[in-house]
Each structure stands twice: as C-alpha cells, then as structure tokens.
C-alpha cells in the first residue's frame, strides 16, 4: 500500500504540469514544502508557528538578491536562501521555545511581524513596496524561462526536501520530538534537553520553509513584501490543517487544493479569497479536525 501510494504520488507529480497550467503546478510545489515545514513543527513537535512567513520570505529575498547580484544557478541561490532562513530561525527559535502552546504561536507571529517591518523600512535592499523584480533563473546555460521546464527543474529539490522531512520524522530524533510533544516533563526526566530539541526542529523547519520560499521567488521571478506578511503564515497553517495535522503528506494535498482553489477564484474574478479560505478553514477546524489525509487514513484503518 505504502509503495503503491508513493508510486501514485510520484506519477502525479511527474504528470502535473501536463494537466495543469504550469505556473500553478510550480506554486503547488513551493507551498507543499512550506506546509510540510509547518507540519514538522505542529504535527510532530506540538508547536504552532504562526510566523513562518519570516523564513519563507527572507529566503525568497536572499534567493532573489543572490540570483540578481551574483548570478548563481538557481538551485544554489535557493539553497543559500534556505540557509539564511535557518540562520534567522536560530535567534527567533531560541526565544520562542521558551513558551509553549498558544504563547508560542503569538511570539512567533510577533517576531515575524518585526521581520516584516524591517524589510519594509530597509528599502535599499528590499526595494520596499516595489519588491525585487526580474529575478534571473539560470541553470548552467539551460533555458528555464518556460514554467513547464522550470517545474521539472524544481521538482527534484522539492522531492529532496520532502524526503528530508520524512527522514526526520522517522528518525530517532523525530521520535524524541513526538515524545516532547506528548509529554515534555517525561522527555526531560529521561534526560532529553527539551528546549534544544525544539530549537533544532524549529531551525530544520525554517530551512524547509526557506527552500519553498526560495523556489517561490524563482517561480515568480519577483519577491514582494507579501511573502513576509503574517497572512502568508496564516495561509500555510490553513493548508496544513486542511491537509491534516501530523500527517506530513496532508500538507502536500492541502497545498495542491488551496493553490488550485485560489487560482480558480482569481480566474473567476472573485477577489475576497479570505472569505472562501477562511470559511473552509473554520469548517475544517469545527468539524473536520483530522484534515483530509487524517480522515482518509482513519477510514482505511477502520
């Protein structure tokens, strides 16, 4: 069953830009990484980060600036962006893991807003509201300006990121994270430095979100302040909850659905996207807390 699912998933991923408008397919890839990054924290460590836009967006900026100023091939620029996001996550995570539960969400939200304000004021680098435009997309002389080909260039990076998340969850480290989530006092009594485990999970999660954000910058060839705004963090949380908290693959399904839905709404000229996503989210939280993947997994078991 597991191998069958994996084969189907790989098949769908390989076929996707043939069945969908290619830029939408690329966007799904980016958001899938973002959602899995959030789920790594929320589902497996029990920490709801409401500030991951700080990592997604800062990586987007670093990636874009490196590509413009240094002309690095795009996977290297994205990697540098993700490393920068992970670096930013060290001080933020160090402070945030001192609180748990609802406070953790508020604190991460607040720090991300601080990053947003700084980017907004630091115009010489971020170009303020104009954003960074015309990000070049190169890979050793290959022409990737067509979104269709860029999808296949980005897919291996996303696959590596997802595989990394899967490895983390199923490693001894991942099991400790679950223990920290379920019973922090006991985990500490067993000798695990709880804060340090949470911090490492936070930084790894920021790295994954940064991979997604860097690819997002490359996909749009444009970086705006929106990538850092808390509504972006909120959208990622919506994607995870809709897909299923603590399921990892749920985030992938959720991002495909939300990105497709938003594209469809934009196409049909309805601008109040928050009305629809907010409504779906409220219904999910009220009636459907396992999310799509969680519900399917449960149906299969019973």
């Amino acid at each position, binding site marked *: 069953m597991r191998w069958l699912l994996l084969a189907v998933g790989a098949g769908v991923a390989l076929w996707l830009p043939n069945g969908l408008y290619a830029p939408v397919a690329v966007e799904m890839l980016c958001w899938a990484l973002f959602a899995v990054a959030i789920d790594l924290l929320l589902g497996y460590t029990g920490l*709801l980060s409401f500030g991951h836009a700080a990592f997604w967006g800062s990586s987007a900026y670093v990636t874009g600036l490196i590509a413009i100023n240094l002309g690095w091939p795009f996977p290297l620029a994205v990697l540098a962006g993700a490393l920068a996001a992970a670096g930013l996550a060290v001080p933020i995570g160090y*402070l*945030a893991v*001192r*609180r*748990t*539960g*609802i*406070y953790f*969400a*508020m*604190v991460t*939200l*607040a*720090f991300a*807003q*601080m990053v947003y*304000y*700084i980017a907004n*004021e*630091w115009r010489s680098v971020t170009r303020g509201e104009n954003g960074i435009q015309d990000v070049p997309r190169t890979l050793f002389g290959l022409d990737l300006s067509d979104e269709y080909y860029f999808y296949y260039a980005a897919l291996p990076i996303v696959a590596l990121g997802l595989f990394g998340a899967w490895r983390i969850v199923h490693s001894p480290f991942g099991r400790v994270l679950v223990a920290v989530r379920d019973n*922090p*006092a006991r985990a*500490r009594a067993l000798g695990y430095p*709880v804060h340090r485990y949470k911090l490492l999970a936070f930084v790894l999660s920021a790295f994954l979100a940064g991979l997604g954000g860097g690819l997002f910058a490359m996909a749009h060839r444009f970086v705006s302040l929106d990538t850092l705004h*808390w*509504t972006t963090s*909120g959208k990622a*949380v*919506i994607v995870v*909850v809709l897909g299923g908290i603590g399921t990892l693959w749920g985030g992938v399904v959720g991002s495909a659905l939300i990105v497709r839905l938003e594209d469809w709404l934009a196409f049909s000229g309805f*601008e*109040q*996207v*928050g*009305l629809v*996503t*907010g*409504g779906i*989210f*409220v219904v999910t*939280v*009220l009636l459907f*807390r396992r999310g799509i993947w969680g519900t399917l997994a449960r149906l299969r078991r019973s």
Partner: protein
Amino acid sequence: MTGFLQNTFNGLVGGAFYALLALGLAVIFGMLRVVNFAHGAFYMLGAFGAYVLLAEAGLPFGYALFAVPLALAGIGMALERALIHRLTRLDPLYNFLLTFGLALILQDLVKWRYGVQSTPYATPPGLAGTVDFGLFTFPAYRVFVLGFAMVACLIVWLVLARTRIGVVVRAATERPDLTRALGIDVGRWITPVFGAGIALAAVAGVLAAPMRAVNPLMGADLIIVVFAVVVIGGLGSIFGSVAAAFAIGLVQAWGEAYASQWPIISQITVFVVMAAVLLWRPAGLFGREENPA
C-alpha cells in the same frame, strides 16, 4: 519640555487603544482560555460601525460610541455560542485557529462591501477644538479618547474587584475546576464575558474612527502588536496587560518623536521589548508561569 509633554500625551493616547484591546483579550483569555485572533477584526468593525451609522443613518458619534459596542458584543456572543463554545474542551490552539479564520472572513466581508480605500470620519463637532493645559495645547478629541479609555479600564477593574460577577470571573480565571466544584455556574458567565471583551475592542474601534483611517485592514497588523503587548504584560494578568499597553504606547510615541529619522525604531520597539521580556521573565512582567514544561 512642551514638546516632551506633548509626545508623552500622544503616547498615552496610543497606549489607550492598546489598553482597550489588550484588556479585552486578557478578560476573554482569563475566562475562556481563548486567544481571540478576531479581536483586531472587531476593532475594525467598531470603526466601520461608527462610519455606517453616520453615513447611512445620520447617527452621530455619541450614539455610535454606545450602540456599536452593544451590537458587536451581541454578534460576538452569538459567535461564541455557535462556534467557539464547541471547541473550548479541546487544545486552545483550535480556538486560536478558529478565530483566525473568523478574522479573515470578517475582514473580507467588509472589503467586499466597502472596498479597501480608507474612509474619512469627521471629528465630532463638540470635540473639534483644542484644550489648553498651560504648558501645551492638545486636540480635544485626543483628550476625550484618553479619558474615555481610562474610564472604561477603571470600570472593568471595579467590576472585577468589587462585584459578585468579578469574584466569579477572577475565581474562574485562577481555578476553573475548583470554582465549579464550589457550586458556581461558571459556564453561565462565559458568553457575557466574551461579549464584554468584544465590546471593549469595539469601543477602541469607534474611538479610532475620527483619528485613524477607517479601512478593512486597520485591525490586521494592530492585533499583532497587541499580542506582543500582552506577552510582555503577561496574558493571564489583567493589570499587566493594561500597564504594558500604556508603556508601549509611550515608548512608541517617544521613538516617533526623537528618532523620527529612523521610523523603524518605533515600529519594532515593542518586539524588541518582547524579546527582552522572554529572556528575562518568560511568563511576562506580571504573569505567572503556566505549566512548566
């Protein structure tokens, strides 16, 4: 000196808005264990309520100041009964998420109807002048805002400290299970307390209408700053939230006045203070450590 006093006064006025919002958040959190993400949306609805009453019904500011908070408290209580109530037994994160969804919906509903442009709201005629304090003069409307907010905070404090309802609310905040065991019907007070918290946010919104641009996004970024304020004060502590609100208002106003070449300073001070508080007293200046994990 004159300039300093004026800046200080401005800081207190800014702090008054934070105080009304933080107070509402703290009261709701105390009773329901819900961090209400939709608080900023209700602040925005308060300002829009004032605007709609004036523009479409011709009702002036004075009516709005009482009618809008009452109406929004009603809407808030209905939402509490219909939605929030269903999740109170679960991890508080679910209600945080639920109210986040509600905030998106409320914000986009207003955007849909009124667009994203800011709408002006004239200063109420009786409060249009300035007040002379001897050393400096100050817009009368701002004096009124500060006075009204302080009276509202004082009333909440009196209710909590001196009335039977206040005793129940404080007891339920400290030890909900024990309060129930003493035969007090805690559940009966949950919905009214939620309504009162929403009313405070709405009051802040109505007061903001003549001073700040009325638009659907006015509460969106403000609520994040208020979150930081209550983390600084200690979310469980009502006094701490109000004190931190005024302190942050002052620091921001001074930053705006004396570091005006770096606007970033007044924007991020609150977050820097929050970081310092997290290092030094993770539970907040006036808060107590929750379950140490």
